[in-house]
């Protein structure tokens, strides 16, 4: 029994090592890796590719009905990145998950070739909710909404993706 446990443990460790450094093995496992929920982990924390900036999400709106020559508002930044006070964050920092999730979603959304992309839709869905929440109660008028993803580094803020305008 104990020998089997040792053998399985060593095999698992070997699989984790291969998974990190051997691409054919990673490709062979495909979607199985996802369903192992971390038992074959991906250890890539801030390396080798540099983390030199943040995705910033902006949106603007316009009254519906003049799609071609819509008069949009100024771009407004959606601030996903509010952090709590220092001593507290060790025990409670729910924004950390939102920020991580937003990075993943933006990473995929900027590759979207159409507005049917799941991550594009997730972002749009969230922005429509935020926009509606900011409107006075009882407002029923329809608006167009457009979002833009920008890459913010210490040196520059660069637009990298613009969505179509969608009714909301």
């Amino acid at each position, binding site marked *: 029994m*104990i020998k089997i*446990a040792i053998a399985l*443990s060593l095999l*698992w*460790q070997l699989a*984790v*090592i291969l998974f*990190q450094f051997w691409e054919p093995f990673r490709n062979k496992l495909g*979607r199985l890796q*996802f*369903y192992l*929920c*971390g*038992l074959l*982990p*991906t*250890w*890539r*924390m*801030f*390396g*080798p*590719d*540099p*983390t*030199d*900036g*943040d995705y*910033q999400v902006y949106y603007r709106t316009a009254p519906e009905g003049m799609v071609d020559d819509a008069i949009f508002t100024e771009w407004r930044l959606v601030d996903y*990145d509010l*952090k709590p006070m*220092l001593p507290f*964050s*060790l*025990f*409670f*920092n*729910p*924004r*950390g*998950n*939102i*920020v*991580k*999730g*937003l*990075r*993943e*979603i933006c990473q995929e959304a900027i590759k979207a070739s159409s507005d049917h992309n*799941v*991550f594009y*839709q*997730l972002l749009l*869905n*969230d922005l*429509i*909710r935020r926009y509606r929440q900011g409107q006075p109660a009882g407002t029923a008028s329809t608006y167009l909404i457009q979002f833009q993803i920008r890459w*913010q*580094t*210490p040196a520059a803020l660069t637009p990298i993706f613009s969505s179509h305008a969608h009714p909301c």
Partner: protein
Amino acid sequence: MRIPVDWQSAQSCLQLIRWLLFLSLTISSVQNISNSAAFGPHGLFAWRFLKYAYREKGLEWAGLDIPFGRTGFILLNLLRLGLLAAGFANAFLPMVLPALLLISAILYIRAFPPMSAADQLNTILLFCLVPSAWSASPALRAVSLCAIAGQVLFCYFSNGLLKSIAPGWWKGSQLKILLQTGNYSRKGIAGLAAKTGQPVFRLLGTVIVIWELSAVIVPFLPAALLWTFLGIGVLFHLTIAVVMGLNTFFWSYLSAYPAILFSWQMVDHALRSFN
């Protein structure tokens, strides 16, 4: 050669790992519940859209709309909190630990965009703790502890290796830029990082890379260096939690430290038995 297993020490290490891991999972579930609006139909992680991404991963089952909707997500987290309460009381551990592993896996699948390396490590820890709860064999408990230590030490080493091939980490430029981002820093720290000279970051970057790479030799280090390694680790994760906002990393990685201590003790016994 016979390596003695210190039964009391293994038991204490497992107990400490469980408590720290349960704390990590508790924080994670409370944060999930606090973020539950994001998992609702109009949220950033809405299942009604995200489920199409799962279809590409081969998961397509209409029954998932209930547990993966907002209410289901909250209930799964509440169930996990209930199991964690039983776990903290050391009640029904042979059933509680596999149930926690199952629910944590379901939550991992549901909430994959915000899932991090800390959640992966939590799965690994739960997976290793289950056999030790099912069997009273000291040897099996020792294997569980060594498996945890092996995984976490390899995690550090692997990260160190990846950083070491990126020249920016040795020069400190990557750390300096990282601390000026909005996602992984704070306004005060970002301002300070911008003003601080490159030599400070070169030193810090080099220390981080060497510390991570040294994980692979930890079981063979003298006791004083082992404690230095662990001390740097605690400081490293505490800084990451407070400065970068990655709080669950602190608790998840700290959970594995008793296993590193135990493995060091095993290797120490083995080496002594050669003499």
